[in-house]
């Protein structure tokens, strides 16, 4: 069974199986299990921080080295498309939540902000999936993450009447665009990788490239523990929120893949744009929303993004979006 070559012909079910039994996803489940059996396993904060710094920088560096090797046309078009898409997503999420779901304005805007932004870990898992499938993709995709992290949050916050003291929040939000650590490491890594070139990066490949998938496993073990701590809130979340958190990613993912196709991205690139659109933030968005919309309930937006959408995308969404992109690209 030589799946490295024949994956083009794989059914969605086969893709699903392949994803669920990859070490990365199995480690996520292991983390979930740790919470369920109430293990005393715990990642010290410094380990969590260290692993994220490594992953973000490594993915940036790799992208930069790839970019330096081949000037890629269409870069600006794709970045603009990502930005617009991120900004647009809250425009349909908010009404759905507000009028179909009957959430109060703050809660609707808060959830919309999370789905307008992106999840870096879901992005990393998508890249790992592409690598396992030997599917090529554009080197500059990490820049796409950076571009899509903030606009959706900003737009969603504009949808509710501004509370007092929000000027301060706007300044902070803007600053996040340039200086938030995930954006900074991704873009910084891209620059360093581009300037050093493939030749220069060879010297550090043994640290930044070879162990990448293994480090991601460790990180997803922790993410499994974090996400599953939200499962307890699921019962109180209500059916509407659960359905929203399962279907909205599918819609956003399809839009993203289609947009990628229109922008002439490779199949892998369109898949990644889809994953980013489908993913919901649980790092930048919660922190910003907590300050900007203190009356919104963290239990609602974190349960949706972290407790439902994140595990869904990781396990089922990624192979699904990949199958969809294959169908669109006719492979």
């Amino acid at each position, binding site marked *: 069974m030589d799946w490295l070559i024949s994956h083009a012909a794989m059914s969605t079910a086969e893709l699903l199986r392949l994803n669920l039994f990859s070490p990365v996803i199995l480690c996520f489940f292991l983390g979930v299990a740790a919470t369920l059996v109430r293990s005393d396993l715990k990642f010290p*904060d410094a380990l*969590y921080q260290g692993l994220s710094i490594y992953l973000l920088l490594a993915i940036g560096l790799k992208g930069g080295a790839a970019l330096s090797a081949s000037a890629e046309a269409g870069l600006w078009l794709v970045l603009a498309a990502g930005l617009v898409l991120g900004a647009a997503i809250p425009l349909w999420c908010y009404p759905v939540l507000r009028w179909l779901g009957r959430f109060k304005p703050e809660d609707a805007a808060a959830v919309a902000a999370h789905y307008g932004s992106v999840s870096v870990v879901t992005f990393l898992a998508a890249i790992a999936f592409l690598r396992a499938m030997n599917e090529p993709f554009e080197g500059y995709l990490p820049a796409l993450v950076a571009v899509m992290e903030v606009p959706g949050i900003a737009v969603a916050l504009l949808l509710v009447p501004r509370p007092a*003291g929000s000027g301060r929040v706007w300044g902070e939000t803007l600053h996040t665009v340039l200086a938030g650590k995930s954006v900074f490491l991704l873009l910084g890594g891209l620059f360093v990788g581009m300037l050093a070139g493939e030749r220069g990066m060879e010297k550090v490949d043994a640290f930044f490239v070879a162990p990448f998938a293994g480090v991601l496993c460790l990180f997803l073990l922790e993410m499994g523990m*974090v996400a599953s*701590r939200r499962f307890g809130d699921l019962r109180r979340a209500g059916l509407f929120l659960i359905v929203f958190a399962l279907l909205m990613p599918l819609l956003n993912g399809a839009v993203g893949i289609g947009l990628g196709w229109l922008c002439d991205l490779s199949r892998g690139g369109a898949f990644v744009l889809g994953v980013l659109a489908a993913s919901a933030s*649980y*790092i930048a968005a*919660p*922190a910003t*929303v*907590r*300050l900007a919309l*203190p*009356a919104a*309930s*963290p*239990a609602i937006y*974190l349960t949706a993004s*972290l407790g439902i959408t994140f595990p869904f995308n990781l396990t089922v969404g990624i192979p699904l979006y990949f199958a969809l992109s294959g169908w669109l690209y006719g492979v």
Partner: protein
Amino acid sequence: MTRVTIIAEAVVAERIIEDLLRLGASGYTRTEAEGRGSRGVRASEWEGKNQKIETVVRPAVAEAVFDHLVQDYFEHFAVIAYAHPVEVVRGEKYG
């Protein structure tokens, strides 16, 4: 002098510290803490632990800090505060 202790969720700690200094505190000391209270709202566990902020101030400043906390933070954020008098070495520097 009065020592004021504030325990706040991480997301508002920076902001509270800015407020403290604006209201007249000459300094502060902060440690990471973990805890449970009666409300239990918190944005996210991995945004960081609670912060315990301690500041030694004149009683009038302590009053102002208390008022400010009640007005701006108590409704929506996980914040508690308490105070008691202390004797300080060379009190003049806390102006």
